[in-house]
């Protein structure tokens, strides 16, 4: 019987709107009780007590868009190393993307991910499976069977289902099973050979650009197909003013649609590409400042429901190339919390609303049991000090890859304890001093 009392905490539960000093009791990997009055008269003898020192205690973060190299590119990231990175970043549940080698488009591969995750990972890992076989955008994968095997949603990851007829049938078929279709919205022909946002910076660097309209057009197409089919649709990462506006209109029409934004889309703009910094090459590309602000506004007004890290590990060899040839991707698991907290520190969002985007919202969308503080829920928790100042240091990353443009950035807020199923999977090594 393992029992632990987390006392002297600031309990924040976006699911119930709770934000109050209090305590929380864990037993056998589950939350048993919580609240401002719990242990008001002291903790019973014999119970493990963790004094949170007034830090925030909230549900562990859920990251809906994580790329891992396993299977196929284990030198970039394994499920185990990604889980260590997640734990260090306060993330207790990651949703891995199917663009592995081989592609997760078969029941056996979903089983493989689940088995590897169970045996080797310190946080919860759920796979998304491919929408189309081999991510080719042509033939539907076995959506129903994959869902029965516990694929939590469907996506072609960083690929686009370009054919509107295929997407229409996918949404239509998936609606029968109430499956969630997550799509990376980018009109591929319009994006063309683009490698960064189209605009002044791309022009000066002589790099082919991806116009913002590539995203807008695909979001608008997808929303019309949702209207036509009644499917459940999630835009995997929005980065442009116009696409967010399109999403807001779709929601206003009553469509069952949601959207996420990558941390990079509000933490950086296209200027970060500077003199061909391939570490700032990501998908969707870093956009102009006006688009960055639109992402912040979209998160604040709820048009964008979810924040994801878009964690995409790449080794040095694939990044130390001319910008056009360099791999796309930024790692993000260990920087998601502090960078998202910038929205709170800048006064754009309350802590409660901000945490909702990384806890209860993805949990509800994916039908996961975590993401909330309530008796009976799994004890997947994060204890953090939202004000702790530190500097992002790539040398301290647990991820196997170090492709971050944030190295050296001063931030506030860091995980102090990350708890999965009642077990502490991460403790801030210098976090007990205050």
């Amino acid at each position: 019987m393992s029992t632990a009392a987390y006392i002297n905490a600031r309990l924040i539960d976006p699911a119930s709107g709770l934000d109050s000093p209090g305590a929380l009791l864990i037993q056998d990997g589950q939350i048993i009780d919580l609240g401002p009055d719990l242990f008001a008269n002291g903790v019973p003898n014999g119970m493990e007590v963790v004094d949170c020192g007034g830090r925030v205690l909230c549900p562990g973060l859920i990251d809906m868009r994580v790329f891992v190299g396993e299977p196929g590119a284990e030198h970039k990231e394994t499920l185990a190393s990604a889980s260590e990175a997640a734990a260090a970043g306060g993330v207790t549940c990651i949703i891995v993307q199917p663009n592995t080698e081989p592609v997760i488009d078969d029941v056996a591969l979903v089983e493989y991910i689940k088995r590897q995750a169970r045996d080797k990972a310190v946080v919860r890992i759920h796979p998304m499976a491919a929408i189309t076989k081999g991510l080719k955008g042509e033939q539907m994968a076995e959506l129903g069977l994959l869902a029965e095997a516990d694929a939590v949603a469907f996506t072609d990851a960083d690929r686009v289902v370009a054919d509107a007829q295929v997407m229409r049938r996918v949404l239509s078929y998936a609606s029968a099973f109430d499956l969630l279709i997550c799509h990376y919205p980018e009109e591929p022909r319009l994006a063309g050979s683009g490698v960064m946002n189209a605009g002044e910076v791309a022009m000066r660097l002589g790099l082919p650009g991806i116009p913002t309209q590539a995203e807008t057009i695909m979001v608008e197409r997808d929303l019309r197909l949702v209207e036509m089919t009644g499917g459940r649709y999630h835009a995997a990462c929005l980065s442009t003013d116009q696409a967010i506006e399109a999403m807001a209109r779709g929601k206003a029409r009553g469509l069952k649609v949601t959207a996420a934004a990558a941390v990079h889309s509000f933490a950086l703009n296209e200027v970060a590409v500077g003199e061909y910094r391939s570490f700032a090459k990501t998908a969707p590309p870093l956009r102009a400042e006006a688009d960055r602000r639109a992402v912040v506004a979209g998160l604040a007004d709820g048009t964008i429901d979810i924040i994801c890290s878009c964690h995409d590990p790449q080794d040095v060899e694939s990044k130390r190339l001319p910008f056009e040839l360099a791999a796309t991707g930024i790692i993000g698991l260990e920087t998601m919390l502090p960078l998202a907290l910038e929205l709170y520190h800048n006064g754009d969002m309350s802590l409660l609303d901000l945490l909702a985007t990384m806890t209860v919202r993805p949990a509800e969308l994916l039908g996961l049991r975590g993401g909330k503080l309530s008796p009976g829920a799994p004890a997947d928790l994060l204890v953090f000090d939202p004000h702790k100042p530190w500097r992002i240091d790539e040398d301290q990353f647990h991820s196997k890859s170090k492709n971050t443009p944030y190295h050296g950035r001063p931030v506030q807020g860091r995980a102090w304890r990350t708890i999965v199923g009642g077990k502490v999977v991460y403790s801030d090594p210098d976090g007990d001093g205050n």
Partner: protein
Amino acid sequence: MSDISSSALPYRHLLGIEGLSPSDISEILDLSDNYVAQNRQVDKKRSILGGRTQINLFFETSTRTRTSFELAGKRLGADVINMTATASAIKKGETLIDTAATLNAMHPDALVVRHPHSGAVALLSQKMDCSVINAGDGSHEHPTQALLDALTIRRRLGHLHGLTVAICGDILHSRVARSNIMLLNIMGAHVRAIAPPTLLPGAMDRMGVEVFHDMAAGLADVDIVMMLRLQNERMNGAYVPSTREYYHFFGLDRSKLAKAKPEALIMHPGPMNRGVEIDSELADDINRSVIREQVEMGVAVRMAVLDLLSRRPSNQPSVGPGDMKP
């Protein structure tokens, strides 16, 4: 020649025009003038770069630029080696960084690089201890072309400031256009861009140029007409409907040229597509076309650049905006 340390450029590399000051450019052009005179003598050889090694590393085919750099180095006394992508390890999968490290170990004093990808020369320069000169990277920059164009204009018209220069053609894909726009703006000229919208970058107006889609309007009263090459694969309907249509609306002929100032000069970075972007006869008109002169100026400008970069003491930290981080 003046005191060595005072007349050295404060940069290790020449990666682009962006970041150069008007005085940097004037200094290069002044020295180029001397080399033009020297190159017209029977004895063209100097030993300023005696004992030094220059490597021309070309990842794209080029005849005139490579030859021009080769001549420039040899006339200054350097040992010049040409490497092309087909003949080197690049085709065997060696990365650009490895190539740089390998060449660096041979202790060259100058590396002249052309590469099909924007930013590749800057990336390579980070791994080199010697001076790196950009001989064209993707659609980014081709600084010595802009410098030789400026020298050609300055020798003909005496100055750059206040001139109106029309750049016509495939500006979207042109490194020559980017470098020229920047240089001409730095030197106080007025720049116009004339092209169909499909051959112009979206944010063109942010470069300090006036955009025209009509040759007659764009060429009105200009001092200089710079034509750009349009590659064949871009004329088959992808960017413009056909060669015939392109020539009709955007090719330079006598009637369009009549809109420019009576003594306006015609320039072209070469190689020309006669009858596509420029009327053949016009290209050869010695009263208007300075296309051959541009080639001559190219060698002088490259000598000046090699000379100036070589004067920088090797232990001096690079401070130039054109320099990448070490």
